[in-house]
């Protein structure tokens, strides 16, 4: 408790030091509002419904540095690369972008400089409910690094953009990157994010990503969450979709990071939008992976479709909480949600909770949640054809994950994810 308090004190001190220097009024106001929200809430505890199954306290005990020594990360050509992927590559070191990137149709700006643009007021922090999200508040109050990605009106980006987040964990480090994506009207882009970590000390990354998708735009967002056990991630992603837009989110979490908490919130603030959320979590060791999603249908004629699948090994734990809100205005809503889990160990635990709140009357909604284990009949069938235990389990896990992995539209990413699954499964059975 005392050490958690000290982290809290560290942040208070940092905030007071920094905000006296801030001369940008709207940003100052935003940060103050956010910090007050954080001060009121503190770090979440399991007494809060949203954090009931995820006890964050043990992960905050480390003596984290909030401002690391100047990033001394050497360029490692292959760090976080995805074999065979033809993409525009961007590397952020501890959240910092330090080379210029030139991508047709996209403007990428470090958030430090970009933030001076008053036009950002309409996006930054605008749609996040600070009162209920203490980590997102903390990030808003204190973020330093990160980028703004703005896709020009009518631009169809010809290749995916791959962002590798490289972190230096040579000393315990608490990082708070901020990402803002603005997809202007009729634009189209695919963004892939992955992580590479250097060093073995404890790393805590509290990221906030905001995506604003204007009318008729399409954004595909991939999160590949592979990291070693010293990593802890809290991600808050707030998406706003305007009319006739399309948003696809793919979140794949693999064994490694001790803690992953993803909050993915969608505001469907325009009619005729379409949103697909695909998630896969393959967990091992004593990992804890928690996915909280919220799809808020605010306008009529929107479709949202969510499929999250979990495969749990060892004594790992997973949480799935999927909320769908259908507001009074949102007639003719189609909202679907499914969460399926496969427990491959007696010691693994999953808590799955779908939550529907519907205030409109003419809607089609469904949700479902299942927890099962290996189908022994299927396992025997495969073995009876000469397929050994490891290969058979691999085939069955891939089959279970299939309707999530086969949605990946980029072949190299799909292959990469499938190989990671096979590799991690084999590791777990060694």
């Amino acid at each position, binding site marked *: 408790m005392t050490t958690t308090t000290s982290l809290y004190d560290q942040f208070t001190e940092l905030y007071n030091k920094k905000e006296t220097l801030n001369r940008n009024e709207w940003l100052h106001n935003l940060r103050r509002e956010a910090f007050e929200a954080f001060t009121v809430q503190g770090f979440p505890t399991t007494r809060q419904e949203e954090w009931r199954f995820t006890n964050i306290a043990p992960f905050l005990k480390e003596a984290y540095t909030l401002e690391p020594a100047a990033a001394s990360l050497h360029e490692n050509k292959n760090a976080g690369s995805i074999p065979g992927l033809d993409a525009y590559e961007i590397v952020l070191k501890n959240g910092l972008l330090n080379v210029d990137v030139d991508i047709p149709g996209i403007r990428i700006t470090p958030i430090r400089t970009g933030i001076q643009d008053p036009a950002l007021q309409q996006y930054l922090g605008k749609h996040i409910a600070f009162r209920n999200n203490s980590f997102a508040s903390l990030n808003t109050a204190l973020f330093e690094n990160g980028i703004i990605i703005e896709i020009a009106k009518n631009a169809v980006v010809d290749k995916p953009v791959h962002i590798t987040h490289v972190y230096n964990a040579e000393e315990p480090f608490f990082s708070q990157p901020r990402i803002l994506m603005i997809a202007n009207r009729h634009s189209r882009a695919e963004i892939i994010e992955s992580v590479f970590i250097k060093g073995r000390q404890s790393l805590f990354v509290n990221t906030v990503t905001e995506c604003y998708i204007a009318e008729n735009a399409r954004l595909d967002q991939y999160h590949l969450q592979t990291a070693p056990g010293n990593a802890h991630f809290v991600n808050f992603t707030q998406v706003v979709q305007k009319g006739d837009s399309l948003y696809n989110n793919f979140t794949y979490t693999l064994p490694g990071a001790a803690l992953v908490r993803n909050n993915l919130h969608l505001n469907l603030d325009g009619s005729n939008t379409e949103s697909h959320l695909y998630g896969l979590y393959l967990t091992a060791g004593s990992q804890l992976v928690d996915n909280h999603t919220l799809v808020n249908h605010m306008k009529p004629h929107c479709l949202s479709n969510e499929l999250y699948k979990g495969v749990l090994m060892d004594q790992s734990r997973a949480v799935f909480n999927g909320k769908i809100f259908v507001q009074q205005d949102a007639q003719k809503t189609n909202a679907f949600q499914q969460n399926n889990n496969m427990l491959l160990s007696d010691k693994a635990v999953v808590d799955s909770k779908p939550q529907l709140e519907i205030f409109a009357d003419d809607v089609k909604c469904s949700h479902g949640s299942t927890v099962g284990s290996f*189908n*022994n*009949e*299927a396992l*025997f*069938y*495969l*073995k*009876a*054809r*000469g*397929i*050994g*235990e490891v*290969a*058979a389990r691999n*085939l*069955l896990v*891939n*089959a*279970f*994950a*299939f*309707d999530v992995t086969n949605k990946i539209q980029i072949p190299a990413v799909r292959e990469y994810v499938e190989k990671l699954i096979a590799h991690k499964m084999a590791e777990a059975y060694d």
Partner: protein
Amino acid sequence: MLSIKNLQAKVEDKLILKGIDLQVNAGEVHAIMGPNGSGKSSLASVLAGRESYEVTCGDVTFDGKNLLDLSPEDRAREGLFLAFQYPIEIPGVSNINFLRTALNEIRAYHNEPPIEAKEFLRLTREKQKLVEFDAKLTNRSLNEGFSGGEKKRNEIFQLAMLNPKLSILDETDSGLDIDALRIVSNGVNKLRSDKNAFIVITHYQRLLDYIVPDFVHVLYDGKIVKSGTKELALELEERGYDWIKEPVTSESV
């Protein structure tokens, strides 16, 4: 090739196989007949290594090896094949990927390199033709949405691909119309050689018009109560199973 001596097995503490003796040599086709519930599928399951069965007594040697000591996958790798009475559907596992994996696992067991893509394709085409298996089905998920007949034909297609020494066909004929029955039987007949052997489990004599057995055995209440040549099958067809169910007579001992 296969030698079964006094095999007894139970499932959930219930004795199902009550002492089975059977000798199968290379080049032979044995038919096992018998009423429902007599233990035919159980015998097939025990031979294939299904874990829910516990062997309580007896020996099984397969090509000189103690079969009961081997895992299900090693039995298959040694050349035992079971065509299931009820093939399972496995959504998400493609037929073709499944077959390639199986083939390569068997090859690895025999210290052979993985099959070349071209050779695999050639083999697939050849065997598809042999059992008139629709090429479209090959790329689908394993048995998913297949008709009963398609599933059975897929079993024989797999058999043809894996080229086992001993094949056990568990009621492959049930659920097949007469055309499918003819195709499946033709396939099996073409695969017959003096190096392999078949155990054909069936309820009806019909199949044995197409796959002519060297020996026919009648299984009843976990025991082989009668053995003979193909004429025995005809007699069963005429007289039904009731006469063999009567209290064990000196004839059947």
